[in-house]
């Protein structure tokens, strides 16, 4: 078992990162904030994938690479594997995690410390805001997956489906 740190270190780092980019850096441009968060994830995924595949032979096809993400890679990060993998055999894969660790710990904080969140959102309900923040956090693991696959020579686009929280499905579309 490699070196460990407390889970709250990673959780808090992520919360602060999302908060910084959404509320301060690009508070009026959520698309730019999302792109930054995804880019940070990409960097992390790329490097982790490189470390975890150093001693392995290349994957024979896309499916093998995706399975690696679902099993070994996910286990290194979240101590569990992806629960369900689906594919249409035409370059789209859906990776479903029934209890995605980073979502289970997230609670939306309505306290005055986040008062600046509500100022610009006339008509936006707290629930909308909560959904938006959740989506922002999820750009990070989307980036991680995209970065990891990119390191394996597989360019793709990754999005996430959260219609069934705390389960979430990462949709990977491989670019031809």
């Amino acid at each position, binding site marked *: 078992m490699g070196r460990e740190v407390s889970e709250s270190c990673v959780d808090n780092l992520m919360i602060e990162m999302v908060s910084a980019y959404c509320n301060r850096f690009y508070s009026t441009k959520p698309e730019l904030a999302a792109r930054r968060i995804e880019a940070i994830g990409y960097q*992390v995924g790329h490097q982790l994938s490189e470390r975890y595949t150093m001693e392995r032979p290349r994957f024979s096809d896309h499916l093998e690479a995706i399975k690696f993400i679902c099993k070994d890679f996910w286990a290194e990060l979240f101590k569990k594997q992806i629960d369900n993998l689906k594919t249409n055999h035409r370059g789209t894969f859906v990776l479903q995690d029934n209890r995605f660790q980073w979502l289970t710990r997230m609670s939306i904080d309505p306290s005055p410390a986040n008062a600046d969140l509500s100022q610009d959102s006339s008509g936006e309900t707290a629930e909308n805001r909560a959904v938006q923040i959740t989506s922002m956090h999820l750009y990070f693991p989307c980036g991680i997956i995209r970065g990891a696959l990119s390191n394996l020579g597989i360019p793709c686009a990754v999005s996430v489906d959260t219609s069934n929280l705390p389960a979430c499905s990462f949709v990977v579309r491989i670019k031809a």
Partner: protein
Amino acid sequence: MAPPAPRTGDAVFANVERVNAELFTLTYGAIVRQLLTDLEEVEEVNKQLDQISIFRGYNIGIRLIDEFLTKSNISRCVDFKETAEVIAKAGFKMFLGVTASVTNWDADGTSCSLVLEDNPLVDFVELPDTCQGLYYCNILSGVIRGALEMACISPEPNFWCTHQGMCLVRLATHPR
């Protein structure tokens, strides 16, 4: 009934949820890299990592202190010396899994150095020549400041980081 005895740093760390330190190290590295790209000036990034505005170690500190006090059962520190020891031994251990040593006390006992010889934040990290002025670990300075302010001390941690990876936080408090 006697209050529960304070737990040692090792005991607390053994009981918190832990994750792969590489994820933490690489995420922090990616954040710093992104901040450097977005802000361009090393001085600006130093400030960001510590306390000003966008990405704040301070915000992380104010969250961590609650978890720390709850899980460690540490009773109120008698004086600043004890505070420094608690941070170095229990605090760092509980979150980063490593302890720091407290050295270089000044004559009044109002400032000291916390030295982290083995810091997961800097695993595999090498600063390029263009970033020689960067206080890579400045987030720790903000975290400690945030935590201590919540615990009702107002310190002024300043941070230095040597390139061998040994990190040094200089803690100073107001003399009584």
